[in-house]
């Protein structure tokens, strides 16, 4: 087994099986790290908790809901305003957050009464909102509050409201992934099937495992609408509570982040016979084949092909401009759980970069299977990385850029490795054809930053060039390009706008005959 042993982790031998180097002869039966096991205490892992997996990742992107956490105020505060999942509901889900504010007396005497007061107050504060999710936290799980009973009591007293309860305390599992599972199962068990679907098309999908980071969902929604496909619900980015209650009415589940949402797709398949189609919204070829598959499913592949042709013609010259300049650059794909496999192959093929490492903070072995299968030989795959291992990997691999979270990005900055935010994106959205170009542009701007170049100069020792007052990115990136590429009329830099999402919200779509 080609396990990768980090020097910094020699003293904790159980870490050894959590990283592998993908060797030339290795397939998945020879190289796969362990995954989704309890974290080693004190290792300074990057993992979060099961509460955040449920509330912060999956619950909160629902846009028309009061999201209350039942516990001390910290869980609520800490998970508030650290994400970029927007909505077309004036970002209500980003702006308002609710905590029951459990105090010592409630720990001693119970906090159920407090919870009920909170629910009523919250509905009073936002009288237009009639839907609520309640998230259990460590403290209220341990004192054994019966949140379901209180929610039912309120629903009995206030017939116009509906409340969803998610019992996923922080300690429920090795990482946030435990919470993904719990909220998937709680939603299918308690809410799916309780609202009749409003069907407006012959072609109806649930779009699942998509969180509308910087507008990803709205980009994909645009394609689906152009094809005449109805998105009955999105689980959960830009998603609506009642639409998600009617998920059982779709013809097809289109799944993006299988890590966080395969459970509900699997259950919808077993309970309602709705098939599950895994897709990639990132990258031209994977996106095109995904749209084509969905089109084929409904017998409307011509509509898909039209979009593919239009979008490819519009954006491919821009993608290729960046590809020429990113060829051979070394990247680490170090996200949470799904982007390692969404990106590993297509970024190599379509941007020309070399993926030298993939890691997953909270993924399972299944994610590593996909990630390792999709990356090239020589890549280092790490499960549940920790601070010292990431540093060691960066020193060894010398990546030109890494894609990871905000805080690990600050660690990388200090050793002069630029980072892009893999979770929230820099200048997203990154899904869709234009989005993929935006990603390429962000990578280009990170790698070819003139300031980044200056960070290598030691003015106390090195010869200071003094050969001009500035550099442009292209003065750095085009040095080794052929004249033909540099002056190509077929290639061009990104020409899109800063905000690509607001115009989509104004757009009208063709009527297709039913």
């Amino acid at each position, binding site marked *: 087994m080609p396990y990768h042993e980090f020097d910094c982790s020699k003293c904790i031998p159980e870490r050894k099986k959590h990283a592998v180097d993908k060797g030339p002869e290795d397939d998945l039966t020879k190289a796969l790290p362990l995954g989704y096991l309890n974290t080693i*205490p004190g290792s300074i*892992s990057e993992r979060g908790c099961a509460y955040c997996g449920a509330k912060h990742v999956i619950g909160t992107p629902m846009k028309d809901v009061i999201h209350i956490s039942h516990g001390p105020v910290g869980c609520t505060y800490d998970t508030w305003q650290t994400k970029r999942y927007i909505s077309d509901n004036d970002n209500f889900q980003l702006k308002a957050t609710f905590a029951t504010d459990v*105090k010592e007396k409630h720990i001693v005497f119970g906090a159920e009464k407090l919870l009920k007061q909170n629910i009523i107050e919250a509905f009073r504060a936002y009288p237009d909102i009639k839907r609520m999710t309640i998230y259990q936290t460590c403290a209220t799980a341990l004192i054994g509050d019966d949140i379901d009973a209180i929610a039912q009591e309120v629903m009995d007293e206030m017939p116009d409201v509906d409340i969803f309860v998610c019992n996923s*305390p922080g300690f429920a599992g090795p990482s946030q992934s435990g919470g993904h599972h719990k909220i998937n199962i709680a939603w299918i068990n308690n809410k799916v099937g309780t609202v009749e679907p409003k069907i407006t098309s012959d072609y109806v999908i649930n779009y699942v495992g998509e969180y509308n980071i910087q507008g990803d969902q709205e980009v994909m929604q645009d394609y689906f609408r152009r094809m005449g496909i109805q998105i009955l619900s999105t689980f959960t980015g830009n998603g609506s509570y009642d639409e998600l209650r009617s998920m059982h009415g779709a013809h097809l589940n289109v799944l993006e982040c299988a890590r966080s949402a395969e459970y509900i797709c699997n259950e919808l398949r077993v309970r309602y016979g709705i098939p599950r189609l895994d897709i990639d919204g990132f990258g031209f070829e994977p996106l095109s084949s995904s749209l084509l598959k969905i089109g084929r499913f409904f017998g409307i592949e011509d509509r898909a092909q039209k979009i593919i042709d239009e979008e490819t013609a519009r954006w491919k010259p821009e993608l290729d401009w960046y590809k020429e300049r990113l060829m051979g650059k070394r990247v680490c794909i170090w996200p949470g759980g799904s982007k390692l496999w969404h990106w590993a192959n297509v970024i190599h093929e379509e941007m020309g970069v070399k993926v030298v490492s993939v890691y997953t903070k909270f993924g399972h072995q299944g994610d590593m299977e996909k990630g390792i299968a999709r990356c090239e030989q020589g890549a280092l795959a790490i499960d549940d990385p920790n601070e010292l291992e990431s540093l060691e990997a960066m020193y060894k691999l010398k990546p030109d850029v890494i894609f990871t979270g*905000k805080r690990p990005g600050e660690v990388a900055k200090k050793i002069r490795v630029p980072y892009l935010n893999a979770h929230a994106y820099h200048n997203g959205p990154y899904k869709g054809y234009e989005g993929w170009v935006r990603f390429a542009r962000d990578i280009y701007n990170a790698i070819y930053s003139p300031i980044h170049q200056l960070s290598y100069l030691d003015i106390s020792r090195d010869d200071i060039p003094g050969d001009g007052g500035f550099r442009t990115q292209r003065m750095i990136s085009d040095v080794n390009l052929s004249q033909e590429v540099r002056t190509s009329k077929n290639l061009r830099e990104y020409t899109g706008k800063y905000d690509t999402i607001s115009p989509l919200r104004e757009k009208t779509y063709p009527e297709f005959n039913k």
Partner: protein
Amino acid sequence: MNCELITKERAGVINPIFTCQPAGAQFASIGIKECIGIVHGGQGCVMFVRLLISQHLKESFEIASSSVHEDGAVFGALNRVEEAVDVLLMRYPDVKVIPIITTCSTEVIGDDIDGVVIKLQEELLNTKYAGREVHLIPIHCPSFVGSMIHGYDTAVRDFVKYFAEKGETNGKINLLTGWVNPGDVTALKHLLAEMQVDATVLFEIESFDSPLMPDGNHTSHGNTTIADLKDTANAIGTLALNKYEGAKAAQYLEKEFDIPTIIGPTPIGIRNTDTFLKNLKRMTGKPIPESLVRERGIALDAITDLAHMFLADKKVAIYGNPDLVIGLAEFCLDLEMKPKLLLLGDDNLSYAEDPRIKALQENVDYDMEIVMNADLWDLEGRIKDGLELDLILGHSKGRFVAIDYNIPMVRVGFPTYDRAGLYRHPVVGYAGAIWLAEEMANTLFADMEYKRNKEWVLNVW
């Protein structure tokens, strides 16, 4: 009475102003050199606090978790602490100080961290790490008590209490800054230097604003040493600038080592900075030098350009850490502004006894509300109900109130992640007074232009 002190009427929190205790203890812990804390609880209690700190400072700080999972929550998780200490010591050879910070979950399950610290000292530290200097410090931070302010105050006290050790008088003062920014520490050290006062600054966090060096230095960390903490027992006096962040430690030193102590006022604004210098003078006998007269003069000169022309009568709401809020309100009054609403974001009952709040109640001659245990809904709800404001002062978590209601806002306090580099600017001292007044004025100016509200006034000024 014009100034009313009330407590939030609702039971719950809509858009919190504060997070919980462990965050405060973690923020204190990163101020100490060769220290990595272990937070005993679920992983989110660390992961998100590290993210919060890194959002604010645009740096990463090391804090570990005992990673309590389901089995630990059911059967007790002290074994996780033992393992965490060992793993941390093995992999971070420079670490000497390990606070063990509890959370709600491990307090509810009743894990005896004091007991496990004794056990670890007797066993692990005496055998595997014999000869290595290691300090394990239990810090109790049940999240359901107080707030991040208490957590900070408690942690500072517990660090001081653990280390303070009577020796020869060192001739220094202890300066407990409270929860401030690197820029504040720079400003305070500047004042000390001008006064030629030697001080132990708790905590030495100027280095939080750390450089990007050609040789690739990857850690940002505070610089308060174990020796500094030990020596707090030998100071000639303690100045705790904030009543709610650091005063517990000052009181401990006073009680245990008879060290003369002055608590407050937070040196925000000219008047409070004057008092701070007076206190320094009283404690050390050092005169206030001409250089500071001049510096104060520059501040007064700058502020005179702004106060009665632009700032006077502007209605302000202020939220955040209590000492900061009170200090800002006092300074705003000196600037002829009208703080209308002060929000103190936890249930600390002693706010009502704070002489500064009493002074506001006695002297404010227009309608002002001070809300205790407040949340940001106390701000938004009042705006919805007609409260007119010209300016909001507070941290970034309230940004959408400002954005949605078109009210200009100056970011101040912790965290201020939606503005660049604010941690570099002081709010204390004369430098802080200048920054605050000018930042408020410039924010109002930008708003006048954005709203076309007498923007032509600035044609000539």
